[in-house]
């Protein structure tokens, strides 16, 4: 029954192993996209559409797993969170909401600014600030994970990024209201 072992091992491979890419925060998005398609070409249930239920079930398992890994790898925040977890520093966003005071101050300022926004130009200025904040946080993640290997600090940074992304969604919602 050696093959059962192989299957189990492969479906339980890390996302990085499955995609045959280095287990680093820095990733080449184009390479991930290409790899995703390459894997789905092998495993997608449509490749075995006329071949009966057994092949469909196996293909479905693989295809789901490949999609799961791709979703996680292509999103920098989810990818960082996954790396932290693999290194024993889970992000635990639901239970751990303690953030540094200066970060919280900035969040409050943004919230106030968003409440006061009345036109598209002001909203775009705020959007640019949020984008810059996000870019800074991402580059610090790059350093914390790939250079320093400080996963607890990276987990903290991931939590900060989650706040920033949530705020980004609120900016989008406001943009809808203003009719853009």
């Amino acid at each position, binding site marked *: *029954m050696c*093959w*059962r072992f*192989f*299957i189990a091992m*492969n479906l339980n491979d890390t996302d990085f192993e499955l995609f*045959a890419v280095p287990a680093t925060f820095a990733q080449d998005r184009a390479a991930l*996209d*290409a*790899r995703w*398609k*390459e*894997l*789905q*070409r*092998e*495993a*997608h*249930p*449509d*490749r*075995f*559409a*006329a*071949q*009966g*239920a*057994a*092949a469909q*079930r*196996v*293909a*479905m398992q*693989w*295809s*789901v797993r490949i*999609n*799961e890994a*791709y*979703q996680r790898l292509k999103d920098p925040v989810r990818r960082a969170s996954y790396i932290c977890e693999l290194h024993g520093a889970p992000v635990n966003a639901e239970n751990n909401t303690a953030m540094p005071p200066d970060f919280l101050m900035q969040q409050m300022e943004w919230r106030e600014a968003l409440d006061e926004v009345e036109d598209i130009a002001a909203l775009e200025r705020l959007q640019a600030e949020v984008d810059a904040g996000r870019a800074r946080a991402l580059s610090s993640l790059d350093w914390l994970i790939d250079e320093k290997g400080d996963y607890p600090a990276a987990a903290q940074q991931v939590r900060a990024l989650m706040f920033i992304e949530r705020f980004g969604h609120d900016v*989008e919602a406001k943009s809808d209201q203003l009719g853009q």
Partner: protein
Amino acid sequence: MALLQISEPGQAPDPHQRRIAVGIDLGTTHSLVASVRNGVAECLPDDQGRVLLPSVVRYLDKERRQIGFDAVAARAQDPSNTITSVKRLMGRGLADVTHRAAMSYAIGGGDGGMVQVHTAAGDKSPVEISAEILATLRYRAEDTFDDELYGAVITVPAYFDEGQRQATKDAAQLAGLNVLRLISEPTAAAIAYGLDNASEGVYAVYDLGGGTLDISILRLTQGVFEVIATGGDSALGGDDYDHALADFVLAQSGVQTASETDKAAVLVAARAAKEALTDADTVTFAADVGGQPLRFALQRAQFDAATKVLTDRTLAAVRKALRDAKLKADDLQGIVLVGGSTRMPQVREAVAQFFGREPLVNLNPDEVVALGAAIQANQLAGNNGAGELLLLDVIPLSLGLETMGGLVERIVPRNQTIPTAMAQDFTTYQDGQTALALHVVQGERDLVADCRSLARFTLRGIPPMAAGAARIRVTFTVDADGLLSVSAKEQASGVEASVTVKPSYGLSDDQIATMLQESFSTAQQDMQARALVEARVDAERMLLATKSALDADGDLLDAQERTAIDASMSALRLSAQGNDAAAIEAATKALAEITEPFAAQRMNAGIARALSGRKVESL
């Protein structure tokens, strides 16, 4: 069969057993059937050479009905029995229908909340009416090939929810079609264009049909069609342009309609005027209202102005889809126009202006969806030896659960690539709670009341614990067909419950069985004979595939496994010589099950090869 194809994906087990598969565009105004013949997709004409079948069904009495052009011809005299645009009623409850006043036939509520149309043949569900159209196309295809169909890919608007998709599948089943897949109309159009033009890049498909607007953003790379985002409006189409134009002319001329016949006459005239304005700048709008002729000199600019609000609504949907795709208008390599309504000059101009480039129109907008569906059908039937095409589709609408206070907790966000499985943990909110009711909903709104209810089920037998102590993992699994199953498991005790979602506007299997007997009274014996032939063909394919797999990779098995597979093959051979279809199916299934781990191993090897192939490339 699984086994053979794993080593060589896409290669048909036996080239002589080519399966006849068709693509069907079940449209609001027209429907078409297409198939791949000699490597080329083409629409199949009727015996008079016409490829379009008007999606119109007229019930004359209990027995007789007219479908297509004959029904259209009779529409003005018999509007209340001539059912047009039935697609807009598919999977809909009475409360969902917003354009009742504009319809020339009467509808009411029926069992399970589904709309019923009152006709001379009694109350008919939209599913039954659509089945008449689908059956007509099925007969056309079977006549063309002088053979039975293996299956069909049917297109639906990307924006159709689970209820509307299920209703479409039910209609196909009622029409005796084996549904290989439902795919979205814009995706089908992109397949037709992509393969035709060998294009690479990101494309937007703007599909304005008779009753629906669909926007899809797709990326095409090396034969892989990746749907990035879909959007649109399931209740906006060319019909609305007719209604807006009819209202405009009536208001301008001060004429009022008094009867269903008047309404139908004005709508027919509006549609004719709309079509004439594609080429002419001025036309005469002509209809008989209450026995009086209504004549109105109509300019295209008036038509454009009277319908601008509709055109603007379509562009709002485009904007939303682009934002979902995180793209800007100038990131796109091309815009594909689909649907007869994109012939309207004001629509073409508006789209060209929005994207800053001229849209692609080199394929017939009426045919392109059916052609793409035929290509995918050919692939899914296993006929496409090269296996060039792979479609990575997404779910069009978010799926979630009702939580406290009637709010929706989203589990699978829209535009997620399928197949997918996503899980979330929930807990109990009362001390000692032993059951958890789960309500599965679909939609983008935050309140359950604004979303479509898909299914309810209950997880029972949770051990009594303090509120918040139980950990219940709810998993949503969406397969490549977009079908949802939901399971819930309490992690400590292991108690489980699950449901495969069959939306409430679909039909139960019993209802379908009854309808099949009533309206398509295929003789029982014919059905049995057909079932036996199909069972034998499947058994033969399974045996062949297993044999090739064993020849290629038999050394992967140990002696015990090999013996078990050999025994199962012998059992199947024996049973295939008999006349019991059910027994043959059971034996085929048994062989499929026993070889599944072997199939999995070979598939695993395939993926491992893909991995190593990649490593060589990157050196």
